[in-house]
């Protein structure tokens, strides 16, 4: 079944529940946003971070994980300008960087005047890890999530900066895994199951994939004793602010020149524009395994926030969801695979709940998102997203950028 209000199915990988009216837990928790006294929550946040402000000024007040997209500008603006904290920004290099992402990351440093540390793992190792996660999990994104969720924790533990400030908790935002009132914080348990799909880096060690301990060293979570000694805590701004990613990005475009970019398989021109792989190949694998892709996530978000109606979103989702493997030449050259090889891997991970194989070997998607629209007139329209003019930089616009300048 599918939620009657948004578009999430009961098969959502994070786990979802429905009430008697057919409304999903994500929508129920989203509705809390209308009841919560956000002024009081803002005060709570200020009280919380005040404890972490370095009295001596000898250390940073907090860590802010950033990238060239995904609410990074808004988070840094909130932390630095509104909460008046002195953050250390950290970023994990996904290797799949677009020139827009490189420019946004460079601009972030300049307009917010922040220090930034980057972790770039040896490309040879990243490729080995990605081959392993592609084989075992049908995931091209695994190393990105592993790095993005562990590097801030490693820096917090090593540099003794206990507070990490994240943007939105994905479980709360998508499926209402927790209530806003729970003020859920970062846990290794959540990362293990939901970010890393049940496989921590230690679990990837394997002769077949040629992965040894030293290969995954850079992605290992700090020991419990070290985290306890420092008192590392990761908080999520969406528990304290009325989170609206689309509006927040548009404010950042207006105030700080955040760049958006055109996308093939979604109407959201703001999120994940720093990655060649996220919208495209990753979306295709998501459809293979879970029967939907990030355009449905974007539609659900915008339905709940009132930027689009459900019937308007339906057609766009049907149109933009990638049911076939997109052109993945850049990725294939990077990882060293043939298109047939990639297709073979994808077919190993087809979820029989959504796909069946015909006699000639073709895979067919069972539910082509035919929703029962009833008497509602079909009016398909994507929510309006702003496309900014591309900036100028000396980075190439047609390939993965390992390390971009971001400026001319």
């Amino acid at each position, binding site marked *: 079944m599918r939620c009657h209000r948004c578009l999430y199915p009961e098969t959502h990988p994070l*786990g979802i529940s429905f009430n008697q009216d057919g409304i999903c*837990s994500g929508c129920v928790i989203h509705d809390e946003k209308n009841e919560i006294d956000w002024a009081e929550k803002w005060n709570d946040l200020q009280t919380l971070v005040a404890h972490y402000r370095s009295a*001596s000024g*000898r250390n940073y007040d907090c860590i802010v994980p950033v990238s060239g997209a995904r609410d990074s500008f808004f988070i840094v603006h909130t932390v630095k300008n509104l909460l008046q904290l002195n953050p250390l920004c950290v970023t994990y290099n996904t290797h799949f960087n677009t020139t827009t992402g490189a420019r946004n990351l460079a601009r972030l440093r300049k307009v917010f005047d922040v220090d930034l540390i980057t972790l770039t793992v040896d490309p040879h190792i990243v490729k080995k890890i990605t081959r392993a996660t592609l084989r075992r999990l049908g995931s091209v994104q695994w190393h990105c999530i592993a790095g993005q969720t562990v590097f801030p924790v490693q820096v917090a533990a090593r540099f*003794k900066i206990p507070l990490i400030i994240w943007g939105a908790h994905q479980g709360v935002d998508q499926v209402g895994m*927790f209530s806003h009132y729970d*003020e*859920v914080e*970062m846990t290794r348990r*959540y990362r293990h199951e939901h970010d890393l799909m049940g496989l921590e880096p230690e679990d990837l060690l394997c002769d077949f994939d040629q992965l040894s301990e030293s290969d995954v060293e850079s992605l290992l979570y700090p020991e419990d004793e070290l985290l306890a000694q420092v008192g590392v805590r990761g908080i999520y701004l969406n528990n304290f602010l009325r989170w609206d990613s689309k509006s927040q990005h548009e404010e950042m475009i207006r105030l700080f020149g955040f760049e958006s970019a055109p996308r093939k398989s979604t109407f959201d021109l703001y999120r994940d524009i720093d990655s060649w792989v996220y919208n495209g190949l990753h979306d295709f694998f998501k459809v293979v395994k879970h029967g939907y892709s990030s355009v449905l996530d974007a539609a659900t978000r915008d339905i709940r926030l009132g930027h689009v109606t459900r019937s308007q979103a339906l057609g766009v989702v049907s149109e933009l969801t990638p049911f076939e493997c997109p052109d993945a030449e850049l990725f294939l050259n990077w990882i060293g695979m043939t298109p047939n090889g990639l297709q073979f891997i994808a077919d190993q991970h087809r979820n029989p709940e959504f796909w069946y194989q015909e006699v000639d070997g073709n895979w067919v998607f069972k539910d082509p998102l035919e929703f029962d629209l009833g008497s509602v007139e079909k009016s398909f329209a994507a929510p309006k997203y702003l496309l900014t003019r591309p900036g100028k930089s000396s980075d190439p616009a047609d390939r993965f950028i390992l390390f971009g300048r971001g400026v001319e």
Partner: protein
Amino acid sequence: MLKTRICASVVCLNGVAVQTRGFTFFQEVGRPSLSVSYFDRWGADEIFLLDITPSDHSQLPDFKLLRDCACQTLSPLAFGGRIQHVDHAIQAISLGADKVVINTAAVSNPDLIVKIANKLGSQSVIASVDVIAGESRFEVYDWRDSKSTGLPVAEHLQRCEALGAGEILIRSVEKDGSLEGFDLELVNEATEATSLPLVVSGGVGRPSNIAGLIDQFNVSGVCIGNRLNHVEHCLAVIKSALASRTNIRTETLAVYRDHQLTDQGRLLPLDDDALHELVYERFVKEVI
């Protein structure tokens, strides 16, 4: 003097660990085996694995769930859900549970407790009692029908004791998932009704809820549910807040020795100087 047990509950619905609120709203959290593994790591003194998947009486307990979870923990494990026959209890113990939890069967088939206690010993049987406030008294709640059975709680507890149960797990339906603290009136009635070891569940939001309970009543343990999913090392943090006040087990990998907590039970940072001390390893210059 026995230490007070700080236990974790992992409630499962259709094979998925869930948070529960008032027995009506469920939020899926993830794989039960991972929850069990992490709660063990964070210092649970005991783990209650409770399967609340509705079913008819012909269905067996979910032994696969038990098997997947039992191998993830070295802490004592209590397993409950659809245990209707003494053979189910024997099977559960042989798959790695240390105790079985009997809930609805304690009302509909009290002889089951007698049989299990005779076969495996009283220490292996926990009578789990869900309680709702009736018009003038606390009554036993039937979670399958979502209504009170009409049975007075005190009477039911005394019957369970007479039948041979080894301990009682008592939970307030109204407080379930509320994060507001325990129903102390209920605990009072329960401690007066029976001398069996009592584990109280339902409503933990902050360490002071537990401290308040232990200060007033001689309970054997407390069971924490939803809250454990909200914060890193939650059990270890809660135990660090309680360690000075009460006799509890503090052997865990993550020990929050020097940290203070807010009133809500959230971690506060060490002060600037203490953090700065951690940054560098100091070597005292040797002076000859």
